[in-house]
């Protein structure tokens, strides 16, 4: 009598389902968001250190490798945001009487709408 059989857990569990890979992508893209925040902090520090330091910092950031890193971070951050906007309706259901606001609409109301608005305000502020 050898009793119940426990199946082994492998380290590569995230390869088992496409959904797990999507989950890993969502979590890993979070690092880019965090990384970009650090970058912004550094930028602020340089700004505080004086005009020369800031100008030099901007100079460094315009090298091709930094530009490439920016593009990658942008793509990752957008992807990360999209996954969260997709999740928001699940985590925060909005009811109107018996009817629940359909997920795509809820994503617009709670995610894409405010995102685009804030972006538009910033763009307007910068380009003014």
């Amino acid at each position: 009598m050898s009793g119940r059989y426990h199946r082994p857990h492998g380290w590569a569990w995230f390869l088992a389902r496409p959904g797990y890979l999507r989950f890993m992508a969502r979590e890993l893209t979070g690092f880019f968001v965090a990384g970009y925040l650090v970058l912004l902090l550094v930028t602020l520090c340089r700004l505080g250190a004086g005009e020369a330091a800031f100008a030099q910092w901007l100079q460094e950031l315009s090298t091709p490798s930094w530009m490439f890193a920016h593009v990658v971070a942008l793509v990752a951050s957008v992807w990360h945001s999209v996954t969260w906007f997709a999740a928001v309706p699940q985590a925060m259901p909005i009811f109107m009487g018996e009817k629940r606001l359909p997920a795509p609409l809820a994503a617009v109301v709670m995610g894409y709408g405010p995102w685009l608005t804030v972006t538009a305000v910033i763009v307007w502020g910068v380009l003014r």
Partner: protein
Amino acid sequence: MRTEQTMTLEIFRYHPETDSEPYFQAYEVPYDEDWVVLDAINWIKDHVDGSLTHRWSCRMGVCGSCGMMVNGDPKLTCAAFLKDYYPRPIKVEPLVNFPVERDLVVSLDGFMEKLQAVKPYIIRDDVNDTTGGEYRQSPAELARYKQYSMCINCMLCYSACPVAGHEEEFLGPAALALGHRYNRDSRDRGRAERLDVMLAGEAIWGCTFVGECTVVCPKHVDPAGAIQQAKAVAAQEYFKRFVMPRGAKGAET
């Protein structure tokens, strides 16, 4: 329609009295486009090998007995049609993330304990007093929890959850969704009691929102959504308890 064609089922076998390791056994079954995987397994049990062991009952997707891994996906085998796999072979395994009792039968002991832990029943003082008639509940109040009451305990969500497989303390999708169902029921007064359970250790915080529980749920319960909502409630509660310890609570009144 039954034809002369056949197809192959490769079935996970394990017998606790004789096997130290599981193995796969291939069976040739008649191909009928109206058949579900469960029909094929029953056919094998009836006509070829009486020792093949599985659970089933209603064969209409509501008793929750016949969940298995079908080509690596957790499925109700009464709702998985052969025609969706034909002519390739179908691999049938017991649900993952559970100990295997024998062949396709897994142990539900852990789930039964977790379900009981979330106190899945109405908690209020007058619950056994029927003299005042039914509790009133508007269709809108009903709608707030109805989806989470549809769980058939089929365990597919635990098989799709990478955390449930690794973290013992995690209560898991179905149990948490049912706890949340009662928390959202307008008739219930037991939310604080349930949150005590949910706030402990990894009980709810183990969830990293992979979301596959919702993908595989045959009854569209959306346990992933339920857990995130429950986390938000639990977080508020946690914060309240953190900034307002028991003494402060008394001072409020």
